């Protein structure tokens, strides 16, 4: 068995409003808000590195869990914007935590990487004990703040999130998960020459069908209806996309936690940043099932079901 024990996050202090960004990409602040639901995003400083941002989220998560790095059996780190292609940030985060032999593996998948990490952690907890999952991104270095880069520049922000999956204790048990990959459409979302490339229409088209399908499949095989879910925690890609998913599931969008307005799309970090903020706002024990879902490069997508223990 595996349990969600704690979340953590870290966001850089620099806020970049639509008003600041709009003239750089020849758009208006109102248009950015309308097409994305984003009001501002955070940008890392020039001296921040992807592993350093992730380390701060990891430390926050361990502190909230009342755990130490020495308790960890494994670390999984998702990032689509790592400073180096190989090795990625996992080893540096482990080293930053003072670990010299704990396995630390990279998941180089933007947007969906944290969901993949949680799914793997749920499987590995039986042997690893406690698995720390981190999603860390400095996406602002992967977009072009020009009119040509408008479609990605308006969306992305920087930050990191983390989750501790524990074999023995936590506030919710990971009951089931599903992951999917379709490499035949990988060209709609990828990093090329250090810059994020995205066919926005195709991504929306794929995501707005694949995410509800994955959630419905997961709920159906666990004899649950969407109406029974306490909260949906999704990759914060675009507020309009989240509303589409809610409509497809015939579920009030208020049941979908969102914080994209303040942070933008932080790619693989967003799911865990959202989870951390949602969990901080939870009063009392979890009352019903939780559903996590994400869609990202690969294409990779899926969903995870956690239930009160």
């Amino acid at each position, binding site marked *: 068995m595996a349990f969600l024990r704690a979340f953590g996050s870290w966001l850089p202090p620099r806020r970049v409003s639509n008003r600041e960004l709009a003239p750089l990409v020849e758009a208006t602040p109102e248009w950015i808000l309308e097409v994305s639901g984003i009001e501002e995003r955070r940008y890392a400083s020039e001296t921040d590195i992807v592993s350093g941002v992730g380390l701060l989220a990891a430390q926050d998560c361990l502190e909230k869990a009342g755990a130490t790095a020495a308790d960890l059996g494994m670390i999984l780190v998702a990032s689509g914007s790592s400073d180096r292609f190989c090795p990625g940030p996992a080893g540096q985060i482990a080293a930053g935590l003072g670990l010299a032999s704990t396995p630390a593996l990279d998941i180089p998948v933007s947007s969906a990487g944290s969901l993949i990490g949680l799914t793997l952690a749920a499987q590995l907890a039986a042997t690893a004990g406690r698995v720390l999952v981190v999603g860390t991104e400095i996406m602002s270095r992967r977009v072009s703040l020009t009119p040509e880069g408008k479609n990605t520049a308006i969306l992305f922000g920087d930050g990191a999130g983390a989750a501790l999956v524990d074999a023995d204790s936590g506030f919710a048990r990971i009951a089931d998960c599903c992951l999917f990959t*379709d490499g*035949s*459409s990988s060209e709609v979302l990828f990093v090329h020459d250090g810059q994020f490339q995205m*066919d*926005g*229409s*195709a991504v*929306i*088209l*794929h995501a*707005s*069908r*694949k995410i509800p399908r994955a959630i419905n499949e997961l709920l159906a095989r666990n004899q649950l209806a969407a109406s029974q879910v306490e909260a949906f925690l999704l990759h914060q890609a675009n507020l*309009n*996309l989240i509303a*589409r998913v809610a409509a497809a599931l015939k579920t009030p969008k208020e049941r979908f936690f969102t914080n994209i307005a303040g942070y933008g799309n932080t790619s693989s970090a967003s799911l865990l940043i959202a989870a951390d903020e949602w969990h901080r706002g939870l009063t009392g024990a979890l009352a019903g099932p939780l559903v996590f879902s994400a869609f990202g490069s690969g294409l990779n997508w899926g969903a995870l079901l956690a239930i009160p223990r």
Partner: protein
Amino acid sequence: MDPQVRILKVLQKVSGKEISPGADESLFVSGLLDSFALADFVTGLEEEFGVTIPDSDLSARKFDTIGKVEAYLAAKR
């Protein structure tokens, strides 16, 4: 019913607009579709024509004019 009329019916329903574009007129340029409406358009076509559009066909280029949609659906039959 003429396939183009049925396609237009779906298009007008998802866009909420009563305009009728030409067969080769871009549905994006005409303002009938955007990234999000396209997803509803594809789902509406599946329901109206009783077909399943596979994920491998999820490209805006295949659905950006009435003519392309008609040709695509004809090939599915």
